[in-house]
């Protein structure tokens, strides 16, 4: 029968379309149903039974992800620390003539009554009271107490803190002190003198603690006052987030290697912070 059919198809060049249509028409609904059923079963298997493993895999991947995030965070922290230490090292190398030692901040004052930090180095490392503390960004404060293995530093923002400073452009000298707030104040600048926001404030070296030309901050706000201008200064060093600092290991007046005192330096204030103002000119 089949040979006969083959012969007919070859002879008439027919593909037996009618038979195929019938067959396909009859079988395809079952195929479709079978396929749907199989798809449903496969989907059920994938999305339900196999989920048990997927859940486990998910947990594992999540754990790995968390571990990797932690690792990245640690590496970022180490990279940031390395950058900070590199900056300190560069600063030290560029100021080899000034004896200084690096120290890590290990604590703060145990209260809000004073703005203070504690360092992990003390008398045994040569740190003494009244030594200056800086970062490559700028002035931090001065050592107020030194113990064998630790020392306490009064931050520039404390009410009792101060530094001999001057305006970088006009070279007007005046002490800068803290107020217990994030911003510092520049005292004793007469109303006649022109001071503009954004102007850099640097150390004058007149306090005999800090070398000249170290950054103290930038002028944030200027208001006329009586008898002196009210100048608020944003500290150059990030005093709210200190991790490593440099202690200037000298109680003698320091001079920076690359400094050059300009002829137009105008003393506008006393040499040491906290002293009464002196008339300028």
């Amino acid at each position, binding site marked *: 029968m089949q040979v006969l059919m083959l012969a007919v198809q070859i002879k008439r060049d027919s593909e037996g379309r009618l038979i195929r249509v019938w067959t396909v028409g009859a079988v395809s609904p079952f195929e479709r149903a079978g396929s749907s059923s199989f798809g449903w079963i496969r989907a059920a298997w994938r999305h339900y039974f196999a989920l048990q493993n997927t859940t486990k895999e998910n947990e594992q991947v999540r754990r790995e992800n968390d571990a990797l995030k932690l690792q990245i965070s640690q590496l970022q922290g180490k990279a940031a620390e390395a950058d900070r230490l590199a900056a300190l090292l560069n600063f030290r190398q560029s100021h080899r003539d000034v004896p200084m030692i690096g120290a890590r901040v290990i604590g*703060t004052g145990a*209260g809000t009554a004073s703005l203070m930090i504690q360092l992990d180095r003390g008398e045994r490392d040569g740190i003494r009271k009244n030594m200056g503390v800086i970062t490559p960004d700028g002035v931090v404060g001065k050592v107020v107490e030194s113990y064998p293995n630790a020392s306490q530093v009064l931050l520039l923002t404390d009410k009792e803190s101060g530094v001999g400073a001057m305006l970088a452009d006009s070279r007007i000298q005046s002490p800068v002190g803290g107020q217990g707030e994030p911003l510092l104040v520049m005292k004793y600048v007469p109303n006649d003198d022109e001071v503009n926001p954004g102007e850099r404030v640097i150390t004058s070296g007149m306090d005999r603690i800090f070398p000249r030309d170290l950054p103290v901050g930038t002028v944030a706000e200027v208001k006329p006052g009586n008898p002196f201008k009210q100048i608020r200064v944003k500290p150059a060093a990030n005093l709210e987030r200190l991790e490593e600092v440099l202690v200037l290991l000298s109680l003698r007046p320091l001079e920076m290697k690359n400094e050059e005192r300009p002829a137009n330096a105008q003393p506008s204030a006393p040499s040491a912070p906290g002293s009464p103002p002196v008339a300028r000119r």
Partner: protein
Amino acid sequence: MNDAFDIRGESHIEVHKFRAGAIIIATLFALVIQASFPVQFARAALLDFPLLVTIYFGLSRRNPSTGLLLGMFIGLLQDSLSGPTVPLGLYGIAKTIIGYLASSIGARLDTEHPAARFALTATFFVAHQGLIVLTRRILLAQPEPWFNMHLFVAALVNALVAVFAFLLLDRLRKN
């Protein structure tokens, strides 16, 4: 009536006892946290953990003598850790008085409810700062403002932290 604010006779108020060394360890831990936490989180300087410990043990022990001595001990330790610009006794005086007040109030009120703890801590915080300003003005001749927004915010933040910190400290109780 709310039990937390129920005024009762002293004989009905439970005096809590703590595990051996709990007060000393909690005190030292509070001081270490106070000194080291702001290095990592500058905003944490707003908190006064030694004060929270003083208030908690004052309220729990309910013995004015104990509260007074504990406040003095914690305050003097805090003074000695605050550097030479803070004279010994500044925090000592304030915390001695707060320790006494907390234990006196604890002997009269049931202070176990979080709302009571929140309100009392905020009040004690403001009183503590007031005592510091008073000491600075009268004994040290240092002008200090009595009140600012920072104090108000700090009082609320400390009171909120106290509610959770006190729950942790409750675990150190014997009973």
